[in-house]
């Protein structure tokens, strides 16, 4: 890698770091309809997707910029016919390639080809430990069985497997069963990923929100599971947003550690950033990744801490959680520069408890 290509900050700007991780949303197409999908409500269409050679260039530019890991995601990345070529390109660029898949629409044959192409890791989502409930949540009959088969195939090929378990009111009582399932499948890691309320999840918030009792019980169970299974499986879990005291350090700070590329090529500081009005996103069709990282207005908007207001501006945790999530601040308060209301120091913190109390067993609005 050429050190001279590393980004340099302009005078007066906050220090410019190299991104470490890149989420490559190869497509928004997906056979599943999960009601908490993190994709935007307005999905990119197939004809707007970047072509193979553009992605290949983006992977090379990402590596030169300092990116170490690329997450091949979607939608369902296997909806792309060129997934093997794209994986090979990421590997050739020197990136650690992680496939984030639903496990549906990915055949054992394609998986073997991906492994051959240099894939380093696979993450498979599982909607519930109960097959009928899992298929209901995914909005796809037979999804659970396909996922189990694909996960077994990942392990058979010797690829490290992470199970991604998105938790919400309908399945959070089975957190222990989910961990047992991940162990049975041979996963080395499970993400207990509580729903985060953006995109489709925000639309379905009242149907997904767990009760405080459920959240407390799940936290206790996770602690016990960690002790019981230490050395057998890594359990990653954080307190769900609306029940937390401090906000999450969203994407490790805006424009500091990671970037996200939409199927159509827009480069975002995080996958939800397009909800914030007035931000100007640049596309890899028009600019190099290094220029976008350094210069694009969207990345500059909340980089560093000069945009902060009180209580963030003078807070001791300013460099720990960066004021939380800009998208959540906007979605809940209407002001993207406000303190993330998840923080108990936010003047709007009461709002979060009020919203968490709104729970209604309405049918899901599936992502379609």
């Amino acid at each position: 890698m050429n050190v001279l290509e590393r980004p340099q900050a302009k005078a007066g700007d906050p220090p410019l770091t190299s991104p470490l991780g890149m989420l490559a949303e190869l497509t928004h197409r997906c056979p599943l309809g999960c009601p908490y999908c993190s994709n935007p409500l307005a999905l990119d269409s197939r004809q707007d997707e970047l072509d193979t050679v553009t992605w290949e260039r983006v992977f090379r530019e990402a590596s030169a910029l300092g990116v170490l890991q690329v997450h091949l995601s979607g939608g369902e990345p296997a909806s792309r016919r060129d997934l093997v070529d794209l994986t090979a390109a990421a590997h050739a660029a020197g990136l650690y390639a992680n496939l984030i898949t639903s496990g549906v629409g990915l055949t054992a044959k394609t998986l073997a080809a991906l492994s051959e192409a240099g894939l380093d890791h696979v993450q498979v989502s599982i909607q519930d430990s109960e097959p009928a409930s899992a298929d209901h949540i995914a909005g796809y009959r037979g999804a659970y069985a396909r996922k189990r088969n694909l996960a077994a195939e990942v392990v058979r090929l010797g690829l490290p497997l992470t199970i991604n378990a998105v938790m919400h009111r309908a399945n959070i009582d089975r957190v222990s069963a989910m961990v047992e399932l991940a162990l049975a499948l041979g996963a080395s890691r499970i993400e207990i990923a509580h729903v985060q309320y953006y995109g489709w999840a925000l639309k379905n918030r009242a149907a997904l929100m767990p009760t405080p009792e459920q959240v407390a019980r799940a936290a206790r169970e996770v602690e016990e599971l960690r002790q019981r299974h230490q050395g057998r499986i890594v359990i990653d879990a954080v307190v769900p947003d609306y029940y937390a005291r401090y906000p999450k350090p969203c994407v490790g700070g805006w424009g500091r550690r990671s970037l996200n590329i939409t199927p159509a090529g827009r480069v975002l500081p995080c996958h939800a950033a397009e909800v914030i009005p007035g931000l100007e996103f640049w596309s890899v069709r028009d600019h190099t990744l290094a220029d976008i990282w350094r210069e694009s207005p969207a990345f500059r908007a909340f980089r560093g801490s000069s945009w902060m207001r009180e209580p963030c501006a003078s807070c001791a945790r300013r460099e720990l959680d960066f004021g939380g999530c800009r998208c959540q601040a906007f979605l809940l308060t209407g002001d993207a520069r406000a303190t993330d209301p998840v923080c108990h120091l936010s003047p709007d913190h009461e709002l979060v408890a009020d919203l968490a109390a709104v729970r209604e067993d309405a049918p899901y609005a599936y992502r379609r």
Partner: protein
Amino acid sequence: MLFVSERVFKADAIAVEILKRCTGEATFATIVDDLAAAFPAAPRDRILTDVTALLRGLRDKRLLEL
């Protein structure tokens, strides 16, 4: 660098020396002996503690099969 999904662990100089010796065939005792020979200034029990701590930590992160 050690990679797992969504994480990167940067090995320090000591960890690198230990990991270089984890061939998949060398036993725990061989690794400690070899380090003791390569770094005569380091007390052997310190080496033992360091190797144990690193390997246990990596095992718990599922980065290493013991």
